[in-house]
Each structure stands twice: as structure tokens, then as C-alpha cells.
């Protein structure tokens, strides 16, 4: 029976009016988090989603007590960093965005180190099995691959049977199979131990598959909050049509697509066109005819279901990751 099941009262995390301004001497101040309100309920897998520099790490590290907030309320497991720091630390598990561990210790020794810092704690064997590093148990940290280090970082975060787990980009750099198996670890932690997870990610697919709710962050502000399905449904369009042709944006702005029914939204940029539509089979014939009439030479045309990525594009007019894969 884990402690997580009978932790204290209240939500896992409550942030209100959170602001963080970095001041470096001789540089203009950087507003990394700009008035964030957020409540993460117990038992949730919550995702923070956003482009580089959106303020995800800053937000998470404030919750972990590593950074001080410039302004705002921060409550973790119903407690306050000001007065209950040690209590909070005993009940959270953390994997930072870029941690290095002791280079000359083996996987098993590092698990033992972290297990030694918590009471109660998981056994070394259990930790290693959780992230499937059995084969590497006696390998030194310096000789692990990037993905293996990530998995070990998650194992060390679980060492103290935390009630609340923070994972900052836990799957960045993992191969698809390792990523999926880490999702399983995270789900099992929530389902079996009743824990709460706050993770950050750049992968839409990950957020959609793994998270109960996500917050899309941009420039330190929340621009959308809800379950992945809600956010996508909120766009009102179930599908996306993407097309590519030389100078396409200019042609479209010139009115090539005027008068075609069923296009809810369009973004055009250079050679690329991005349309949100309710039903592709209804809209496509009209679009193709319009292109043909205007002499547009299509290089590519694809349709797909709307994703969280499109939510981001809809809200900001930008791609979440420029030219990124998956």
C-alpha cells in the first residue's frame, strides 16, 4: 500500500497569479512566467505543453522548490515551500530537464543512493525493473546512452514512493519503443500507486495519449487548458488539409479559395497552406477545382485528423516546433 493513497487534503498543486522574472545584471529582465493560474488534481497526469522557452521548466522548478516565484501563490500537496520544504521534498519525486548523476556509479548504486535518501523507499531491484534497466544494472553512469540516462532519472524520481511526480521532458531523445514503455511506467505509477504526475513535453502525440489534461503555454502564459479531446473539439474542425505548391500563400491570399464552403480556418505561409475543415470529402473537390482553374501546381496534398499541434497553430498562428518531426 503506498502512501500516495492517503496523502494530505487539497489538490496536488495550486498556482495562482504565478510570475517569474529572471533578472541578470546588465541584461533586460526576462519574464519567463507571466501570470499563470493552475490547479492539478490528485491522480491526474497533467501535461505542460509549449515551444522552447515557453516557461515550462521554470514553472515546474518553482513547484519543485528549486526556484523562487517572483509573485503569486504556490501550493504543493496543500503545503507551502516557505514553511514545509522538507515535508514536501519527502513526498515529491523529480526528474530534471538536464541532470547529470555521479559518473562513476553504476545504475544499481545510483538507485541505492536515492533510495537511501527516502524513508520509505523502493528497493533497488524494483527501481531497475520499473525502467527496464536490468541489463545495465552494473554499468556506470558515464557509459549509459542518453535514453538510458533518462530512464534512470525517472527511476531515481520514483525512489521515495512519491505522491507527486515531476518529469521535465522525460521522453525527449528516447526511441519510440522506450517512449512507450516509459508511458507505461507513468500510467502504472498513477493507476497502481494513485500518484499524480506533472510532465512537460514537446510531443503532441505524447500529450494526447498520456495526459488527462494539458495546459498549452506560450510566452509564459496559458493559452489553452483542458483534456486533449476537449481542446481539439474546441477547434470545431475534425480534420486538417495541408497543401504545398510554389508561392501558394500568395495565390491563396489573392483569393483563389474564395467562395468554397466548409473551410473553418486557414493559415498560409510561403509554399504551405493549412486548412481546418469539418469534412474533407466535401471540401476537397472544390479546392482541387479552384487550384486547377488558377493553374496551381500542387506538390503535396494531405489530410489528417486535427491534433493538439493544430490547437497551438490556431491559437498562436505558429507551429509548435519549427520543422520538427513526429
Amino acid at each position, binding site marked *: 500500500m503506498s502512501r500516495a493513497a492517503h496523502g494530505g487534503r487539497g489538490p496536488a498543486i495550486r498556482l495562482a497569479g504565478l510570475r517569474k522574472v529572471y533578472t541578470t545584471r546588465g541584461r533586460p529582465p526576462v519574464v519567463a512566467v507571466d501570470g499563470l493560474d493552475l490547479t492539478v488534481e490528485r491522480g491526474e497526469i497533467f501535461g505542460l505543453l509549449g515551444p522552447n522557452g515557453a516557461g515550462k521548466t521554470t514553472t515546474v522548478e518553482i513547484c519543485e522548490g528549486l526556484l523562487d516565484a517572483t509573485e503569486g501563490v504556490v501550493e504543493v500537496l496543500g503545503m507551502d515551500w516557505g514553511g514545509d520544504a522538507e515535508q514536501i521534498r519527502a513526498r515529491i519525486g*523529480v526528474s530534471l530537464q538536464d*541532470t*547529470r548523476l555521479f559518473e562513476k*556509479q553504476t545504475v544499481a*548504486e545510483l538507485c541505492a543512493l536515492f533510495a*537511501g*535518501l527516502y*524513508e520509505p523507499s523502493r528497493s533497488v531491484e524494483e527501481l531497475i525493473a520499473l525502467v527496464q534497466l536490468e541489463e545495465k544494472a552494473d554499468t556506470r553512469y558515464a557509459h549509459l546512452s542518453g535514453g538510458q540516462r533518462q530512464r534512470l532519472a525517472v527511476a531515481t524520481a520514483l525512489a521515495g514512493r512519491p505522491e507527486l511526480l515531476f518529469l521535465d521532458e522525460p521522453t525527449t531523445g528516447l526511441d519510440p519503443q522506450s517512449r512507450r514503455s516509459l508511458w507505461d511506467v507513468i500510467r502504472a505509477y498513477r493507476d497502481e500507486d494513485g500518484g499524480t504526475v506533472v510532465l512537460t513535453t514537446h510531443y503532441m502525440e505524447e500529450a494526447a495519449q498520456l495526459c488527462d489534461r494539458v495546459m498549452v503555454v506560450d510566452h509564459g502564459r496559458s493559452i489553452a487548458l483542458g483534456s486533449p479531446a476537449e481542446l481539439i473539439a474546441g477547434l470545431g474542425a475534425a480534420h486538417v488539409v495541408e497543401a504545398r505548391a510554389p508561392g501558394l500563400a500568395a495565390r491563396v491570399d489573392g483569393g483563389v479559395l474564395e467562395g468554397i464552403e466548409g473551410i473553418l480556418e486557414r493559415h498560409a505561409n510561403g509554399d504551405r497552406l493549412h486548412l481546418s475543415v469539418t469534412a474533407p470529402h466535401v471540401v476537397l473537390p472544390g479546392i482541387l477545382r479552384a487550384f486547377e482553374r488558377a493553374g496551381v501546381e500542387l506538390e503535396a496534398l494531405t489530410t489528417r485528423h486535427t491534433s493538439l499541434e493544430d490547437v497551438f497553430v490556431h491559437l498562436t498562428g505558429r507551429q509548435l516546433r519549427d520543422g520538427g518531426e513526429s
Partner: protein
Amino acid sequence: MRPRVLRAVTRTVLLEHLRTPEAVFWTYGFPLVMALVLGFAFGEGKAEPSRVAVVDDAPAALIAAIDEHSEDRVTAQTMTAMEARRALTLGLVDLVVSGEPARPVFDLDPMRTGSELARLQVERALLRAGGAVDPGAGSLIRPVDEPGDRYIDFLIAGLIGMNLLGAGMYGIGYNVVMMRSNKLLRRLAVTPMRRGEFLAAFLMSRTLLALPPPLAILAFGIFAFGVPVHGSWLALLGLILLGTLTFAGLGLLVASRARTSESVSGWINLVTMPMWLLGGIFFSNERFPDLVQPLVRAMPMTQFTDGMRGIMLGSFDPGQIATSAVGLAVVGLLSFAAALRLFRWN
């Protein structure tokens, strides 16, 4: 302090060090090589004139003879018999001359080739000056190889002090800052480990690692050169332990805030340089000008080397040794307390 946490961290830090072969060499091998080189080869192979002390109650003729007839191969200074003997021990002069021109008396360290050379040069000068002496028959050679009077006897305490200072500054100071700059400390900061536990565990593991080298240097001095320990062994070992902790505390202090290896190197130099120069490691610091004496006396290195020599060479009374020990303990405790306050994980 929870033993479970202390154990986990201490073990990790110990293993981390022992698995770094080059670090092991620099802490264990290097001081021994240094003792060997300095002990055997001190004063060897130099082209400078030999430095000779002439005892000040010797007849003026003796001094004049050396000054005028040594063809600049010898520089002579007059000093009291006590000063001369001390200068010989410290390696400031190669030879002490007393007696009369016809029957000179030489005090020298036969371990040093420079001493023998100086004796020959002085004898030649006397021969040329007097013409009539038969230095072979007339001179008296008194080797000062009784343990306790040689430079190596003086040096061992300094080498141990230097080693402990290095262990504190690099073994602790530098290492902690490296852990901070590669963000390892941040990871530890989000665990329930307390600052004091981390610092204590680091201190403990590093003290365990720092203790064997001084003992090795000491044993080496004793077995290779017959360096004496006139005073209490218990006091000697106690002082070494105290010195280890004190310099470890200083190491934690220099590491408490620095973020980069460059900045901690600066702090390390700031602490290390004055101690090397003024702490009585390689030569006695009693003769430094009065102006710097307060600084010299305040230095934990001075306390340590004084105390060590007091015990080993038997030249101090217990009160003075106790004063040294208290001085060291105060510096150590203040450093640890300050480090505890100033320390940051980030």
C-alpha cells in the same frame, strides 16, 4: 542527521574518488615523490656559490680568509651559533664554520652534496690564505645527521600540511563546485536530504580519503630517512586528524557559493598561495617581517606546521601545542559554520 542518508552519500563519494585512478595518484603518489626528491636531492647540482655561515665568535681572521680567498665560490654570513645551526637545518646555508683558521670546525649535513662541496671550497680558501695549514689534519668535521636537525625532519610536517590543504581545497572545494556546475547538486537539492547532512557526509568521506596520505608521508619519512617523533604519537595523530578536518572545512567554505571551476580556482588560490608562502611549509616563517607576523600567526597552516614540528622534533611544550590545536579547531569550526550558512545547491 539521519545515519541512513549519511551512509548513502558517504559511500557514493568514497567510491567516486577511488574509481578515479589519476586522483588517487595525485593524493597518494605525488606527495611521496615530492618527499623523495626534496629529501635526497636538496641543494644538489647548483652553480651558485656555496652559502656558508660563520659563527660570530670565531676570530676575524677566519672570516677574512674565507671572504678573500674563496674566489667568489663561497658567500659567508656571520651569525650566532644557534642561528647558524638553525639555518643549516632549514637549508638556508650549506655549512657552518667555526674554530680558527688553522683548526676549522665544520658542521654539515652529509646527506647534502652541497655541504661537502662547501667544506672543500672553504678548506681551499683557508689553505690559500694561511699557506701553512694542513687542513686535512687540522680541521674537525661534525656531521649533523642526528635525526631532528636535518632539513628532511623539518620538511615532513610541511609536506603533510600541504597535502591536507590540497585535499581540502581540491578534494572538497573543487569537487563540490563541479557537482554544482554540472547540476548534480540541483538534483540532490530536491530530495529530502538536508544541507547539513550533505556537507557532513562529504566531510566524512573526504576525511577518510585524506587521512592515509599524511600517514604514508610520515611513515615514509620515518623509514626512509629516520625522521624522529620525539613527542606523543597520540597527539601527533590527533593533530593530523584535526588538520584534516580544518582544511576540509575551509574547502567547504570556498565551495559554498562558487558556480564555475574558474571562480572556485580563484578562491582556492586566494587561500592556498599565502599558506604556501607564509605557512611554514618549506621554510620557517619565524623570520618574516613583523608586519606580516599577525597574518602568519593567524594562518591555520602555521598552527598546523608549528604543532606538528613541536610534537615531532620535541621543541615545543604541551601548552604551545595545545594553542596550535585550539587555533586550528577554531578555524575549522568557523569555516564549517560559515559554509553551512552560505552553501547553495544552485
